[in-house]
């Protein structure tokens, strides 16, 4: 016989015990492996999703609201030797009028046949009046191929919305389209350049038709680039190729030949030429002169006024002569109208455009230096910029200026001037003076003029295009494929998450394992002793038992690893269906990584073996002679010392916990839920320790009288107190975990929101498809949008925000993002109302007025920002003090330094900066697509209804702020649901442990039971006695868990928003209790079935 055969014999003989241990190992390993595989599966699914949403796209160039030639795609494709696809990507509103369903913020994608080349099985290219819908759009709008629907898209002007004198466009252009196909995920339906597992609402329409409809014929704002076969392309290579291919038109510039005699002009389709381009023009074209032509409200002198005239700021009017800052040259037409002569003073009154199209009128006096005839070549009608809504107007009364025009002031002679001279400037000032007066965020010049000939013109063009940088005009290649893969690889760690969610079930399985093995080791104590007496060394005995354990554990871990795969399938099924709130997708698929399976197997084996090793060491720690005798000589005095230790621990922990709770309550620190939770944990340990002490006391108590029923119960449970306390600890920890988890489910519906809450006390969160350009709190804004006519909207306050689009960094997006959307907010409003709470602030931030710190730029190109603490920590993997990198509108790096972490708020997923600083870096974002709305809670239904109606054409969705917060809480609540379920399974394992303890006790007490019978105790009395003993364990375990948990959730009771999910908790506790009762009742019943004779015969 060899050691190995002895081990095998032992395994075979003790197979029942080892099978139970095997089951425990299978459970713990399966849970461990399953959790790890869930992590892999989620990452893999997101990884696959990157391919699904990108097709063959590898790189992308996105210029947002800057548009370039579609032809650029063809030119770039020729040089890059790959597929380059132009796209026109806009936001729109889709309406199924038949069913009266509207879908806001849909992605409208103008595509041509090149886009279809990016997909393996694309849909057919849509015709001019056709559209391909993504599956989810079709589902939401209830549309099928052949159906018609309305698509509303905002007309696109290249000029920024809030540039001076740019007319406000009609919000939407509407057209009817026929559904040509429904595109599922594999057929480009899920196309998106954003790293997000949420399916976008895509509508694909014909590129030519779309660009024509929105007045952007021949333009695009996205290029998609497929990789070459040789994989030779890179971001830098593409950027270089782009520099070669791009033209001044792609920068929105135009060279105009003014007269055919060598005078040229450069204009921008944005009307104003930005500072950076100005520098490059001056560098590239020698002698180029800046021109700034502005519309003034009135030119007045001597009590006379000429309304609405253009004035040009320009230098070098006459060679060698320079106008001073307060000198003006006027036309004779103006001189006659105002009755002025050289040397007279005239006043210019003009508007300056503020935020949200707020107009501020200002005036400046000038001295007339010279009067020139209107026929002088200086008075050139081409100096007027192409203001949309003005340049093409037939008469002054048709002007659409974006600024108020008082038609009463327009005289017949003004109409005649317009007819004869159009927008010819009536006066000239120096460029420096013009810049001083009409400086704005978009640029200082409306044109540059220069002279050139056939030789120099191409050189100038070439110089300019060489000096201009595509990146500074929004044309920057991105490796969207790699970014997507990186975002997926760094996505939410579901492996770690599920490991922590499964903590209790793993712990329960290990405790069960320890209990089972301990019982088994005790059973084999005599064998251990005999082996020692016949010459086996203690470590040889240990080796034999450990070898058995190792074989069982390895087999169990192997089976557990395989079971873990199935367990993972169940978890993924749950995540794709029941727990979809945690992942916002149903596309998760199982993915097995060998390394995770190995880690799962190894972790399962090691944790189980370590547990068994500790148990074995504990059981073999006694001296051989003690093992041989099978008794513990040292019991009484040792118990005394243990009793003292137990009771001391109990007292210390209880007093600490009590002191902590009192301190937090009386110092108004009830928000510190973690400390309360710790106090609850201390109470739990205190209760278990005091119970152990009490059981030791019961065991030692001098017994001079006949015991009563309850004393007998106490004596009996104290006999095997370690088993008793283990079972109670298992039950109480489980109950504690389940109640804590259940009570922490976040509920905000129907509760009053305070300013400090995550809603900031605001009633609604509104998002629109079309930007709202005016301040809704101003009289102009109210009038513009008809808010004055609505009685329900009289006392409403709007907090409009500016948004720079980015990747959602909220918990709804599983991918890790680096550039979340930036929101420009008004810090003063939040400061005045003390809105929102902070979890962490940078030390430099004033704690009393944290919001105001957003107004102070940290350095050039570095601004402060706030974000939800959860977003900073989990979404961005950053901390307070870290910076996020962006490119501003001019292509320069903008750093947002995270200075504060908000407590769970409606802003989750975004970074907040001051609106003033936002406008400085992103001046083109003129309107607001986002706002918080403050109003009376009692009128909320009416407010929501009226706002949705009034802003229907803006595609506005009005969501209660509490509902938005609840959406984020859904994720956390789903995690808590998973935890509760897994915790519940853990408790069931705990009750199985209770059952095993009971079965073992019953086996050991069969003689005692036989004696009861022999002494004439009735069946019902014995049943009652045994049942009560175990009921004591069950109820004590549940009781301790409940008491400790309620101490742990004490702060929640101070919150008005807290609603204890009592029904759910009662249900869970009832399940635990009934399961426990079953595990008590049936073993006792089974054991009492044996006849008296059988029991005594065994004895």
């Amino acid at each position, binding site marked *: *016989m*060899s*050691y190995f055969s*002895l081990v095998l*014999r*032992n395994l*075979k*003989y*003790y197979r029942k015990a080892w099978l139970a241990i095997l089951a425990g190992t299978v459970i713990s390993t399966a849970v461990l492996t399953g959790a790890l595989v869930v992590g892999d599966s989620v990452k893999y699914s997101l990884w696959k999703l990157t391919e699904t949403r990108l097709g063959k796209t590898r790189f992308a160039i996105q210029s947002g609201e800057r548009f370039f030639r579609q032809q650029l795609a063809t030119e770039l494709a020729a040089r890059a030797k790959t597929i380059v696809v132009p796209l026109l990507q806009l936001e729109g509103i889709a309406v199924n009028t038949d069913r009266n369903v509207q879908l806001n913020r849909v992605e409208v994608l103008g595509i041509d046949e090149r886009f279809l080349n990016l997909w393996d099985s694309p849909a057919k290219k849509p015709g001019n009046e056709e559209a391909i819908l993504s599956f989810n759009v079709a589902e939401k709008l209830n549309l099928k191929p052949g159906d018609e629907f309305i698509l509303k898209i905002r007309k696109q002007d290249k000029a920024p919305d809030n540039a001076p004198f740019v007319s406000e466009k009609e919000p939407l252009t509407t057209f009817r389209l026929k559904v040509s196909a429904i595109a599922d995920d594999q057929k480009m339906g899920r196309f998106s350049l954003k790293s997000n597992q949420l399916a976008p609402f895509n509508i694909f329409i014909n590129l030519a038709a779309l660009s024509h409809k929105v007045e952007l014929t021949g333009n695009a704002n996205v290029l998609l680039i497929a990789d070459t076969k040789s994989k030779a392309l890179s971001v830098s290579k593409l950027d270089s190729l782009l520099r070669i291919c791009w033209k001044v038109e792609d920068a929105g510039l135009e060279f105009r030949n003014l007269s055919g005699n060598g005078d040229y002009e450069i204009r921008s389709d944005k009307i104003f030429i930005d500072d950076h381009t100005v520098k490059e023009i001056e560098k590239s074209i020698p002698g180029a002169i800046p021109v700034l032509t502005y519309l003034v409200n009135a030119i007045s002198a001597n009590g006379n006024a000429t309304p609405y005239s253009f004035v040009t700021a320009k230098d070098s009017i006459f060679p060698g002569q320079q106008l001073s800052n307060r000198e003006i040259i006027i036309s004779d037409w103006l001189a006659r109208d105002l009755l002025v002569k050289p040397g007279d003073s005239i006043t210019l009154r003009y508007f300056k455009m503020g935020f949200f199209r707020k107009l501020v009128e200002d005036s400046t006096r000038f001295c007339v230096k010279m009067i020139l005839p209107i026929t002088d070549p200086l008075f050139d009608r081409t100096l007027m910029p192409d203001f949309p809504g003005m340049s093409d107007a037939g008469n002054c009364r048709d002007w659409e200026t974006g600024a108020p025009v008082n038609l009463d002031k327009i005289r017949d002679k003004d109409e005649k001037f317009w007819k004869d001279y159009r927008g010819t400037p009536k006066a000239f000032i120096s460029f420096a003076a013009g810049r001083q007066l009409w400086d704005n965020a978009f640029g200082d010049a409306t044109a540059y003029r220069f002279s050139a000939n056939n030789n120099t013109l191409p050189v100038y063009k070439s110089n300019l295009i060489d000096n201009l940088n595509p990146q500074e005009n929004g044309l920057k290649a991105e490796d969207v494929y790699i970014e997507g893969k990186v975002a997926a690889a760094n996505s939410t760690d579901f492996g770690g998450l599920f490991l922590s969610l499964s903590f209790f079930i793993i712990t329960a399985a290990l405790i069960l394992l320890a209990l089972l093995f301990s019982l088994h080791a005790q059973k084999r104590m*005599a*064998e251990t*002793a*005999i*082996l*020692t*007496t*016949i*010459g*086996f*060394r*203690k470590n*040889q005995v240990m080796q034999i038992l450990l070898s058995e354990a190792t074989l069982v554990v390895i087999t169990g871990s192997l089976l557990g690893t395989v079971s873990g795969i199935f367990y993972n399938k169940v978890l993924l099924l749950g995540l794709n269906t029941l727990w979809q709130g945690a992942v916002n997708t149903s596309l998760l698929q199982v993915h097995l990584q060998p390394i995770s399976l190995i880690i799962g197997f190894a972790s399962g084996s090691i944790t189980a073996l370590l547990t068994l090793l500790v148990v074995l060491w504990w059981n073999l720690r006694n*001296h*051989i*002679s003690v093992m*041989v*005798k099978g008794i513990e*000589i*040292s019991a009484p*005095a*040792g118990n005394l*010392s243990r009793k003292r230790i137990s009771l001391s621990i109990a007292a210390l922990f209880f007093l600490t916990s009590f002191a902590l709770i009192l301190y937090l309550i009386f110092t108004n620190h009830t928000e510190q839920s973690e400390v309360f939770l710790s106090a609850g944990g201390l109470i739990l340990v205190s209760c278990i320790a005091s119970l152990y002490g009490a059981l030791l006391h019961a065991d030692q108590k001098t017994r001079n009288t006949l015991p009563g029923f309850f004393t007998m119960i106490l004596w009996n449970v104290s006999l095997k107190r370690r088993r008793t306390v283990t079972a109670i600890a298992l039950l109480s920890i489980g109950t504690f975990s389940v109640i804590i988890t259940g009570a922490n489910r976040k509920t905000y519906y129907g509760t009053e929101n305070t300013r400090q809450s995550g809603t900031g006390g605001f009633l609604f969160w509104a998002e629109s498809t079309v930007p709202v350009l005016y301040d809704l709190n101003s009289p102009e804004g109210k009038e513009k949008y008809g808010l004055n006519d609505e009685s329900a909207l009289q006392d409403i306050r709007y907090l409009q925000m500016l948004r720079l689009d980015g990747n959602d960094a909220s918990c709804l997006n599983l991918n890790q993002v680096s550039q979340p959307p930036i929101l420009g907010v008004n810090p003063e409003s939040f400061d005045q109302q003390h809105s929102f709470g902070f979890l962490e602030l940078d030390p430099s931030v004033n704690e009393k007025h944290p919001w105001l710190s957003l107004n102070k730029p940290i350095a050039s190109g570095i601004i402060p920002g706030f974000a939800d603490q959860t977003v900073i920590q989990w979404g961005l993997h950053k901390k307070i003090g870290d910076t996020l990198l962006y490119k501003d509108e001019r292509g320069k790096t903008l750093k947002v330094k995270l200075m504060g972490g908000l407590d769970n708020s409606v802003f989750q997923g975004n970074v907040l900066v001051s609106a003033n600083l936002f406008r400085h870096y992103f001046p083109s974002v003129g309107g607001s697509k986002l706002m918080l709305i403050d109003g009376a809670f009692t009128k909320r239904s009416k407010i929501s209804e009226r706002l949705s109606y009034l802003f229907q054409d803006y595609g506005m969705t009005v969501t209660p702020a509490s509902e938005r917060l609840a959406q984020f809480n859904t994720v956390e609540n789903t995690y808590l649901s998973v935890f509760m379920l897994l915790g519940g399974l853990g408790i069931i394992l705990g009750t199985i442990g209770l059952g095993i303890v009971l079965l073992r006790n019953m086996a050991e007490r069969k003689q005692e039971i036989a004696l009861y019978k022999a002494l004439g105790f009735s069946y019902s009395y014995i049943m009652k006695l045994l049942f009560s003993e175990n009921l004591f364990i069950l109820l004590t375990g549940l009781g301790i868990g409940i008491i400790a948990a309620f101490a742990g959730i004490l702060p929640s009771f101070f919150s008005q928003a807290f609603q204890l999910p009592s029904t759910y908790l009662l249900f869970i506790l009832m399940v635990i209790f009934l399961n426990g009762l079953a595990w008590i009742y049936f073993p006792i019943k089974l054991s009492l079935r044996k006849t008296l004779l059988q029991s005594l015969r065994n004895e």
Partner: protein
Amino acid sequence: MLAELQNVTKYYQQPGSSVRNQVLSEISLQIAENERIAIVGPSGSGKSTLLNILGTLDQPSSGKVLLNGDLIEIMPETKLAEIRNTLIGFVFQMHHLLPQLTLFENVMLPHLPHKDKTKLAAAAKERALKLIDRVGLSGQMHQYPSQLSVGECQRTAIIRALINKPQLLLADEPTGSLDASNAEKLAALLAELNREQNVAMVIVTHSMELAAKMDKIYLLREGRLVISK
């Protein structure tokens, strides 16, 4: 001298407690080769403790224990295990056969930790077969303990103790679990084996019949050893 106890005292004391529970007091005992000694005494007099100390399972609180002239208190646990494996054989009141092993395997079990087990495997097997035959259990050689009678189990336990040719057999109430007839047979067997196997015996017993078959009888009372035969 095969084994010798010199002024052995044993008491138990709990940490932090001044109370001592004295079990053995100044006991001296010499055991010669092939000698048969019985130790009798009332329950709780320390007989088993004395046997455990003699069998290296326990250490005395004071005094010395010598086996073949070697002081055991300075020996490492490995050496003590080797002594228990080769020099000493144990028999208890309960047979303590491993239920998962057959009679033959139980007998061979002490050979497993033997330092020369490979070299002596054939010899051990032959000796086991002879011993099994000697006690009349050849027919039950491949049966499990659960298939044997109590007497057969106890005989198996005795030959298990002899498999490694020990010089000293320590038996703690070997007939305690047997009926009178079986006890009588076992007592006779022990006496025969003492002669045949040249093994010294120290038997702790309540049975005066068994004690009477020994060369010397010691009475252990209140921790002190008194010779009575």
